[in-house]
């Protein structure tokens, strides 16, 4: 990751003077061109659901992925969780290749989600993998060689974990670990479910809920489970998605948890108010527990972003078919309103089973867009519905204008697929957001963005300074002001479905602007402000300022 700091002085000068990555921006404007180029064979990996032939629910909901710079060479590598054997792929000359066998990765657990961050505070990214079975913690030596140390570092979780988030709950400058529990599945007592004459994967309602877990980091990567004292054990969950989000804007991170078939949680962190680590579920009162029509929906993926530009973040949740994907508009003061039928996201999502969801500026027009990957949870739904529904489904890109979203065909070769996780990152370092979709029992799909060069973009890489903030600076609040626009974003790395994203942030500036005023409120409340030029990634160290700038590479 440190290699992002490499200065390419001559190139940078040119880039920053030109203001954008290459050539005349108008000639590269997306217009009606496809915003993503699909590369189905770019990643040498095939997901194995670990299917037993008995249709255990554990098989159908995985698996996740994470984009991060494992070896510190400046480009993104990829961790793919698997139902059989996980895989780390390193990027070499723009191509993903399996890491060497001695990299220390390769758990054969039934894998689900992933959270990546600097757990031991040594400046490199470590990996937490949530499994149905023992969860794993891989500690990085900085060169993409890992050691599995979950148990020795106090992580003893063997229930059916799903998503996870690394977040500094009590503001002591390290990353604590929140782990979602899906449900209590025991294959020894498994009874098959049927629909008509056909055997199907059982619905989650067949299984008991299980509380999520919170483990506190001591700063050196040793964890203590505080699920009981933090009140989580009183909240049985069927959680598949989680994000950290500072709802009250009081500087301590709250958590939003998407539950499958149960009301979602908005876990308000009482650290600042009460001085103790305790969560209260405020989702019902806040208006974000239930979906459209007051249904307890099949919450899966979750993301948050300031869609309407009013300075606070909306929450988005993917759900089952016949349930619209939820969009909870943040009205401030801890109040949300579900508006999916009002802003164009709802009706278009009814026919799909949404999993991964990611808010990105896909066309770099300064307004946020929404990408959703879909795929049914019943492999034989085509047979059950006699063709009126299918296991594989198309992915959806909704282009936004700040208030409404329109489903667009801006994906080339968007054939149907069984999508699960959706991970974002600038894979080719060209200043736009690429996507990776994990596909059930298939190869991951790489969606390479073609938007780079169409706008002026500022890249940011935040580095916190412990003990003020964790090195990953999760929870920092970024405000970018350019022209008459103000973009506000909370820095988080885990969101979507079972995913951990590229930790860098991209901001496309309004037309006519080549620079912006950027303000950071670090997790400890300290602040910094800089004028930044577009055209590259700025590495911003808390308390120091910009320590390096790396120009975007030419679009591929």
């Amino acid at each position, binding site marked *: 990751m440190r290699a992002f700091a490499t200065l390419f002085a001559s190139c940078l000068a040119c880039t920053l003077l030109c203001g954008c990555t290459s050539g005349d921006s108008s000639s590269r404007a997306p217009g009606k061109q496809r915003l993503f180029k699909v590369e189905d064979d770019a990643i040498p990996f095939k997901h194995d659901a670990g299917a037993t032939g008995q249709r255990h629910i554990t098989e159908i909901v995985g698996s996740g992925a994470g984009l991060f710079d494992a070896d510190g060479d400046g480009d993104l590598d990829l961790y793919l969780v698997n139902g059989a054997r996980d895989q780390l792929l390193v990027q070499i000359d723009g191509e993903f290749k399996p890491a060497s066998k001695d990299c220390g990765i390769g758990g054969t657990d039934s894998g689900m989600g992933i959270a990546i961050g600097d757990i031991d505070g040594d400046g490199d990214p470590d990996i937490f993998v949530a499994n149905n079975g023992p969860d794993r913690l891989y500690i990085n030596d900085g060169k993409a060689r890992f050691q599995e140390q979950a148990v020795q570092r106090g992580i003893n979780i063997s229930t059916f974990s799903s998503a996870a988030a690394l977040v500094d709950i009590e503001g002591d400058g390290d990353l604590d670990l929140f782990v979602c529990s899906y449900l209590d599945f025991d294959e020894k007592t498994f009874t098959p479910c049927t629909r*008509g004459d056909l055997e199907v994967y059982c619905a989650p309602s067949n299984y008991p809920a299980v509380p999520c877990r919170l483990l506190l980091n001591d700063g050196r990567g040793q964890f203590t489970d505080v699920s009981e004292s933090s009140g989580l054990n009183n909240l049985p969950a069927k959680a598949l998605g989680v994000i950290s989000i500072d709802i009250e804007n009081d500087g301590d991170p709250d958590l939003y948890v998407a539950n499958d078939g149960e009301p979602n949680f908005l876990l308000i962190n009482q650290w600042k108010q009460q001085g103790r680590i305790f969560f209260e579920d405020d989702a*019902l*009162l806040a*208006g974000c527990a*239930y979906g*459209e*029509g*007051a249904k307890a929906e099949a919450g899966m993926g979750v993301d948050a972003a300031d869609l309407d530009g009013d300075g606070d973040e909306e929450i988005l949740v993917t759900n089952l*078919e*016949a349930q619209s994907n939820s969009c909870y508009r943040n*009205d401030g003061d801890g*109040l949300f*309103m579900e*508006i999916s*039928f*009002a*802003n*164009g996201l*709802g*009706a278009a999502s*009814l*026919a799909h089973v949404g999993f991964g969801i990611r808010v990105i500026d896909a066309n770099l027009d300064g307004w946020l867009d929404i990408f959703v990957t879909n795929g049914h949870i019943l492999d034989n739904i085509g047979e*059950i*519905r*006699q*063709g*009126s*529904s299918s296991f594989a489904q198309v992915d959806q890109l909704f282009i936004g204008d700040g208030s*409404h979203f329109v489903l667009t065909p801006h994906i080339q070769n968007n054939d149907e697929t069984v999508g699960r996780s959706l991970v974002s990152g600038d894979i080719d370092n060209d200043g736009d957001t690429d996507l990776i979709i994990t596909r059930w029992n298939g190869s991951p799909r790489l969606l390479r963005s073609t938007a780079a060069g169409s706008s002026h973009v500022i890249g940011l890489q935040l580095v916190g300074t412990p003990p003020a903030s964790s090195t990953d600076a999760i929870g920092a609040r970024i405000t970018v002001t350019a022209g008459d626009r103000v973009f506000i974003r909370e820095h988080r790395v885990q969101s979507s479905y079972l995913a951990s994203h590229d930790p860098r942030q991209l901001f496309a500036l309004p037309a006519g602007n080549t620079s912006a005023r950027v303000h950071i409120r670090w997790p400890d409340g300290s602040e910094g402000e800089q004028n930044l030029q577009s055209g590259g990634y700025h590495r911003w160290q808390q308390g120091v300022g910009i320590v390096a700038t790396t120009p975007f590479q030419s679009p591929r």
Partner: protein
Amino acid sequence: MFEILLLSTLMQSTPDFDLTSSMRQQTSPMEITIRNAELSLGRGDHAAAARICRAILNNKPQDPDALFLLGRASFAAAEGLAPAPLALQAYREAERSFLQFLQVVPERDESRIRQSLAICSRHRGAHRRALLHARKAVELAPDNPIAQRVLGECASQLGRKEEALRSFQESHRLKPSDIDVVHLLAISLRDLERPAQACRLLEESIAQLPAPSDSAVQLLLVLYTTHLFTNDPDSAQKVIERAATIAPDDLRVAVELATNLYRLGKHPRAKVVANRARNLPDPTRRQRGVIAKILGQLHAHAGHHAEAIQELELCIEATPDDLSALLSLAGSLRRIGEGDRAREVLKIHTQTRKAISLVDRRPLPDLNQGPGLTAQAEIIRALVVLGRIDEAKIQLARRRGIAPADPANDSLQSLIQAQETR
């Protein structure tokens, strides 16, 4: 609606039960009395007919003519009776009379009597017995489209979807012009996850109807919901627009049009349609609730919370079980600073959600078993919470029919009465 239609059909066909002429060889005082009862029945004076028959049966409990006519009279009376407990009582009397009749004259076991018995049993909640009667009705007259349809309905009630589908298909084959059967068949196909077939059937049937007709509207409404079933609100919109063109003043159509416009995010027009629907005559409680909810939620989206609260309260008054209206109301109350009231509404929401989950639970409790009675008492209490007093009364009447001495009956009665007087 279909049940009422069916009952009418059955009653119109009762002259075929011409038992009196076949069984009485000579005019006698008894025959005259029976004729009087028949005349009363013919005039629609079911109560008088039933009184005459009961008087005969007091002296001659096994008189077949009186039993049969009492069955007919009670059955006809049940159709038009309200409130529901009285109708249930009438169905029970009809059932008892027909059954006794068959005991006395087993050779007259006819399909139409079995159809009536099936319907009576269904109303009493004895769904398995209803199915047996309906099957017998079909066995006795396999080419009778009404028998097939009754069997379909009884099978459907018990979740025997394939049997229901076969029966509706047969009924449709025997009488393709019966729009109600097309309706039931389409729903049956939909329930069996064959929505494409349902859509084809409906489109074909609609195409054969004279263009602007009530029947076309009826089938378009089914087609509309079938498209919604396939999560296709855009196709549903096209269909409901067709229905609105045929019947712009049909409240059912207007309410669905407003609902789908809301679903599709076409909110200005949804508001216009909902306001127009509000002025159409004779809305049901549910329709009043839906209209108020749409308008309330539109106001809430626009930030007009005082107006939203007014509409949402109207909605909840009409339909206390509307969870989304309760949540929206709580949201609007919080936004105008009425946090305590919002919390109260959320408490009601939580109670209501629990009650709905209880009422919706399947299978239904078997009232012939002790635990079934306890479970049903919980359902009655939940129905009272949901404001569904008529349904609570029906459940209590069924309960009293099976377990008249159950100690919980009186407290349930008091609960219902207390809710009614509130």
